[in-house]
C-alpha cells in the first residue's frame, strides 16, 4: 500500500487551492500598510487564519499513533495493520512498565545485555579519523568517497576466495562496474530504482512476498510499478520454490526482479545454492534484470563470502545486475547511513555512461553523500589487521544470533511445545518468521509483555540467554491456549 494519497480527493487541485486561498483572503486584511499580525494565529479561535497546509492529513505511520494504539483494546489493536510497523511496536514497548518486557521488534543488533553495540574496530577507526589533523570536511564527489566505492565493490563482488580482498572479480578488473556511495540500503535502492525508471525499458519490478516493508514505497516513488512473486510458504515456513519459479517465468521479458542476497527480511528463508542456480538460469533466459538487496553480508552466516555467493553467481555469468549494499548491520553503522549501489554492466563504456546518469539522480536529491560513515568503512576495509578484526567481531554477532536460534529451538522442544519449530534453526539472519498468528502475537504481548510485529516476526538480536526461557514460555502458552 502506497499510503494515503491526499491528492486524490474529490475536488480538483485547482478547487482546493482556490478554497484555501479564499479562506486566506477572508482571513486577513489586504491593507499593505498593515504590517501587524492580522488574525494572529496565537488566538486559536475563530479569528485564526486557516493554514495553507490545512488539507495535509496526519500520516498514519506517525509513531505518535503508537501511543494512541496502546489505549485501544487489544482485540482492536490486532486488526490494525500498522501494528506491523516496528517503530510502532517500540513505542508500545516503551510504555509498558513490566520488568519482564521484551522488545523483539527492533531491527538493530543487541548484545547479550540487550544494549546497542558499536564495534571496537569501528571505534578505533573513528579515533584515527578524528585524530588525523590532515582530514578535512570538503564535499565528496557526487558519487561519494572513491576508496569506499572500490572497496565496497570488492567486498560484495570479490573473488571466489576472498583472502583479504585478494583477487578481484573480472567484472571489476574489466571496469564494468560502477559503484556509487549512497545513503545505506534505502538510499542505494532508491537511486538504483530512479535510474531504472529513467533509463531502463522495463518499469516493473517484482518483489518477493513478503518483503521488507519499505521496498514498495521506495520503488513506487522512484517511478517503478511493483508486482510480487511468491516466496514464503506458511505451510512449510520455508521457500515456495515452485511458486517463485512460476511467477518469474510469467514475468515479462526484461522485468526487474528484487532479490535478497541473503538473510531474507522478514522471513529468514533463503534459497539453497542449487535453487539460486535455477533462479539464475531462469532469469537469464528471460533477460530478467536482477536487483540485489544486500543488507546482511557477513551477518547472516558469519562468512562474508558465503553471504555474497548469490550475487557472485550472477556476476560470474557475465550478465548485468544491480546491487544495493548496506553497512548498517554488518558494521553496526546504522545511523551513519553508509551504503553503495553497484551496477554491473556489460562493458566499461556502458558503466561510464551509467555512472554519469546516476550523478544526475543524486545531485538534485542531496548533492553528495555524507563522509563520516564511508570513511570509517574505508579505513577498516583497506587495513589488513582492521579487516581481520572486523571479520571476527562480525562473526561474533552472527554466532550470537545463531546461538539464540538454537537455544530457543531447544527450549521449545524441551517444553514439548506442539508443532515443528525447526524453522527457527533453518531460517537465517536477524529475523525469524515464527508462524505465530496475530491473535497469538497479541496474547504474548498482553500476557507476557513480549513485543513483536503482528506478522509473527521476531528479531533474534533482541534475545539473550537470560530471556530465551521467558519467550519459550510465552510461545508455548500462545500455541496451546490461543488458536
Amino acid at each position, binding site marked *: 500500500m502506497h499510503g494515503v494519497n491526499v491528492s486524490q480527493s474529490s475536488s480538483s487541485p*485547482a478547487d482546493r487551492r482556490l478554497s484555501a486561498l479564499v479562506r486566506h483572503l477572508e482571513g486577513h486584511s489586504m491593507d499593505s500598510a498593515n*504590517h501587524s499580525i492580522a488574525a494572529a494565529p496565537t488566538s486559536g479561535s475563530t479569528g485564526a487564519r486557516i493554514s495553507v497546509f490545512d488539507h495535509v492529513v496526519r*500520516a498514519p505511520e506517525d509513531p505518535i499513533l503508537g501511543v494512541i494504539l496502546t489505549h485501544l483494546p487489544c482485540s482492536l489493536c490486532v486488526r490494525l495493520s500498522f501494528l506491523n510497523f516496528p517503530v510502532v511496536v517500540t513505542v508500545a514497548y516503551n510504555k509498558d512498565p513490566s520488568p519482564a518486557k521484551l522488545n523483539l521488534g527492533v531491527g538493530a543488533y543487541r548484545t547479550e545485555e540487550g544494549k546497542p553495540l558499536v564495534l571496537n574496530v569501528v571505534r578505533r577507526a573513528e579515533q584515527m579519523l578524528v585524530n588525523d589533523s590532515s582530514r578535512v570536511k570538503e*564535499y565528496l564527489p*557526487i558519487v561519494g568517497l572513491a576508496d569506499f566505492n572500490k572497496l565496497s565493490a570488492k567486498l560484495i563482488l570479490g573473488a571466489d576466495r576472498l583472502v583479504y580482498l585478494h583477487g578481484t572479480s573480472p567484472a571489476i578488473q574489466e571496469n564494468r562496474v560502477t559503484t556509487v556511495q549512497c545513503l545505506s540500503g534505502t*538510499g542505494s535502492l532508491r537511486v538504483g530504482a530512479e535510474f531504472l525508471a529513467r533509463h531502463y525499458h522495463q518499469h516493473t519490478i517484482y518483489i518477493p512476498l513478503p518483503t521488507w516493508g519499505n521496498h514498495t514505497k521506495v520503488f513506487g516513488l522512484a517511478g517503478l510499478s511493483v508486482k510480487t512473486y511468491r516466496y514464503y510458504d506458511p505451510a512449510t515456513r520455508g521457500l515456495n520454490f515452485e511458486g517463485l519459479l512460476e511467477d518469474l517465468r510469467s514475468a515479462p521479458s526484461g522485468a526487474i526482479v528484487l532479490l535478497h542476497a541473503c538473510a531474507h527480511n522478514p522471513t529468514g528463508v533463503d534459497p539453497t545454492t542449487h535453487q539460486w542456480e535455477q533462479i539464475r538460469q531462469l532469469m*537469464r533466459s528471460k533477460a530478467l534484470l536482477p536487483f540485489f538487496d544486500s543488507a546482511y553480508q557477513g551477518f547472516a552466516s558469519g562468512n562474508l563470502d558465503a553471504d555474497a555467493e548469490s550475487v557472485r553467481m550472477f556476476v560470474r555469468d557475465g550478465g548485468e545486475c544491480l546491487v544495493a549494499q548496506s553497512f548498517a548491520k554488518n558494521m553496526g553503522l546504522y545511523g551513519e547511513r553508509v551504503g553503495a549501489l553497484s551496477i554491473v554492466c556489460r562493458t566499461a563504456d*556502458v558503466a561510464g555512461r551509467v555512472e554519469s546518469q546516476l550523478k544526475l539522480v543524486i545531485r538534485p536529491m542531496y548533492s553528495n553523500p*555524507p563522509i563520516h560513515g564511508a570513511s570509517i568503512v574505508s579505513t577498516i576495509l583497506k587495513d589488513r589487521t582492521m579487516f581481520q578484526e572486523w571479520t571476527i567481531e562480525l562473526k561474533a554477532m552472527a554466532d550470537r544470533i545463531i546461538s539464540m536460534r538454537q537455544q530457543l529451538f531447544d527450549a521449545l522442544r524441551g517444553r514439548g511445545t506442539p508443532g515443528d519449530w525447526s524453522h527457527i534453526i533453518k531460517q537465517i539472519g536477524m529475523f525469524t518468521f515464527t508462524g505465530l498468528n496475530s491473535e497469538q502475537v497479541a496474547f504474548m504481548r498482553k500476557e507476557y509483555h513480549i513485543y513483536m510485529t503482528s506478522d509473527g516476526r521476531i528479531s533474534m538480536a533482541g534475545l539473550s540467554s537470560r530471556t530465551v526461557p521467558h519467550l519459550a514460555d510465552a510461545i508455548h502458552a500462545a500455541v496451546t491456549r490461543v488458536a
Partner: protein
Amino acid sequence: MASAILSLTSASIATSRPLLDNLKVNSKFGSSSQTTFLGKDYIKTKSFTRTNMTVAVEVSRFNDITMAPPDPILGVSEAFKADDHEMKLNLGVGAYRTEDLQPYVLNVVKKAENLMLERGDNKEYLPIEGLAAFNKVTAELLFGADNAVIQEQRVATVQGLSGTGSLRLAAALIERYFPGSKVLISSPTWGNHKNIFNDAGVPWSEYRYYDPKTVGLDFDGMIADIKAAPEGTFVLLHGCAHNPTGIDPTPEQWERIADVIQEKSHIPFFDVAYQGFASGSLDKDASSVRLFAARGMELLIAQSYSKNLGLYAERIGAINVVCSSSEVAKRVKSQLKRIARPMYSNPPIHGARIVANVVGNSDLFNEWKEEMELMAGRIMSVRKKLYDSLSAKDNSGKDWSFILKQIGMFSFTGLNKAQTENMTSKWHVYMTKDGRISLAGLSSAKCEYLADAIIDSFHNVS
C-alpha cells in the same frame, strides 16, 4: 505519479532492441551452444563443475544511455584538479578557504567531535525526522529561541541532507500537497535549484532579479513578476548572500517583498545556506526570515550548515515549515517524514550531533560565533582588496564598486560566457560560466592576479 510521468517524458527511453528477438537462446542444462550474430559467437558457455553458465544477451540493457554532461558547478573543481599551471585559481565551488587557500575545519567542530568520541555515543538509527536535539537548536538558531513561532510550537522541523536534501523534501511536499502549484525562482539562482524542482515534479518559472546594467537588484522587475504570478505560488527567496549574485534586498525592500507576497497569498520559501556567513552575525543574517515570520505568515525554510560550520561533507541541514498552528505543524512534519522514509529512511547522525553539540553548548557556541566572524571577515577583506586592485589597474573608468556592495561568498562579476572561458583558458582561473566567482577561494595574495585576469577578459574578449 508525477515523478513517473516526468521520468517517462524526460528520459530518452531505451526501447528494447530487436536484438533480443533475434537471439537464439539455448538454455538446455548441460549442453554448450553457439549461435552467430553479426559474425560473432555470442553465447558464452563456461564449464563450472557440471553446470554450464549460459548468458542470454550480449548487448547491454543500458546500451542506449548517453553520457551525461558534468555538473556545471561541481565539474569546475574536477577541471581545476586536472590543471597543472602554477597560477591556477579555483573560484568555482562555494567552499571556504583560508588565506593559504586550504580547506578549513572549525576548531569548535574538532572539539565537538572529540567530545562525541569521549562520550562513546552509539550509532543507532535516528528517527526519520532526525536528531531531536539538532531539530530543536536549528529552529532556535533560525528564529531565535524566544520567537513566537518557537514558543507556540508552530514550526515543523525535519533534519535533511544539508540544503539540497532539505529543499528536496520541501519540493516533494509541494508536489504532493499543492499539485499544480509553481515555484518562482530568481533569475539567476543557484544552478541546482531547477534540477531539484524538476526531479520532484514541481513546475517553476523565474522572477527578474539581477540587473546586468547596474550589476544590482532589478527590484521593480522582481516585484512585478512576483505580483504577476498566480495566487498561492511558492516564492523561492535567498535568506541572505544571494547565490550566485551576492546581491541582497535592503531591509526596506524585504518589507515590500513581504507585502506583495502577502497580497497575493503566495508562500515564501527561503533557502538559508549562509546564516552567519554573510554579515558575520547569525541574527542579522536571519532578519529576512524573521521579518516574514513576524507577520504571521506561513513559510518554508531550508537550512544548511555546510558553510557556516564548515560541515560540507557531513550533509547537515533542515527543512522548517512555519504553520499557523502547532496542530498543523504536527501534521506537516508527519508528511515530511513520509517523504524521507522511501528516500533514505533516516538521516545521518554525525553532522547532526556536531551541530547539536556546538549550538547547544554556550562556550562552543560563542567560539563558533568568533570563528564565523573571522571567516566572514576574511571574505570581506578580500572583496576590498580585489576592488582596490581592480580600481587601481583598470583605466577604463568602469565602476567596480558592485564588488563591495555584494555580500557573501560569491560575486557576480558580470563576465559573459566567452569572457569566463578566457578566464580559464588564458588565466587558469576556474569559475562558473555564469560569471560567478567564489571569493571564499581567493587569497589576498592572488587579488592582483585575479584583477589582471578580470580586466583582460572584460575589455579584450567579447
